[in-house]
């Protein structure tokens, strides 16, 4: 069981299963949404994810057709993405986890769009866009 929470503590969630496909995304939308160098996310099965507290505090913003990103409206913490075309999985930004997920990112995506002020210095695979 993994636990996560936003910065103010108003929103709490639990994940009962494993996370899969952890990766770094350097696309401009992820950088803007998180106000950061990149996003680190994994996939979680919707049936394994449960809001424990504060679901009503989660504001959803549709960043592209059919994709919504949720954040806490009190503290702004980025919590979850959901996909109209694939409702069985959510995208989980790892930053709000309170526990070690036991997985590590395996690749970098959208490196062609990365921030000019951040250099990738690890040995992971880099893809200019999505892997082919």
């Amino acid at each position: 069981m993994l636990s996560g929470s936003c910065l103010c503590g108003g929103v709490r969630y639990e994940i009962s299963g494993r996370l899969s496909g952890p990766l770094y995304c350097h696309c401009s939308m992820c950088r803007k949404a998180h106000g950061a160098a990149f996003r680190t996310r994994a996939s979680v099965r919707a049936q394994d994810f449960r809001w424990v507290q504060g679901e009503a505090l989660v504001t959803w913003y549709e960043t592209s057709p059919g994709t919504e990103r949720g954040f806490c409206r009190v503290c702004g913490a980025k919590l979850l993405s959901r996909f109209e075309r694939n409702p069985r999985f959510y995208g989980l930004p790892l930053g709000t986890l309170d526990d070690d997920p036991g997985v590590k990112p395996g690749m970098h995506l959208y490196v062609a769009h990365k921030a000019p002020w951040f250099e990738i210095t690890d040995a992971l695979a880099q893809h200019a866009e999505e892997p082919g």
Partner: protein
Amino acid sequence: MIRGSCLCGAVKFVIRGTLSAASHCHCSMCRKAHGTAFGTYAAARADDFRVLEGADRITRYRSSPGIVRTFCARCGSNLQWLREAKPAVVDVALGVLDDDPVVRPACHIYAGSKAPWYEITDSLPRYAAGVETGQ
């Protein structure tokens, strides 16, 4: 002139002059607020920071005594880190800049609090806690 905007475009700002004292912050509050491995901020003079649009969308959250973090109420983009005792300085989240900030992060701070799933692999100095930048 360095331009910045949130993901939905409701908030737009410009920074006249230069940014300084850029660093990657791995503290648990930055990791939570951004939902990422770390936050990266650089300092602007408050006189140089001007909001062009969407000031009414900027939501303030006091994450610890004297520290305020701001974000767009519509899309959630993190924008600023503000010290109430030092109103002359605005720390800007580099991720929402549209232009190259020119300055580059010089160190990792609060590396002692970093996420277990993230390894720091560059050669920048790492500090277990914060450093006083003199800002």
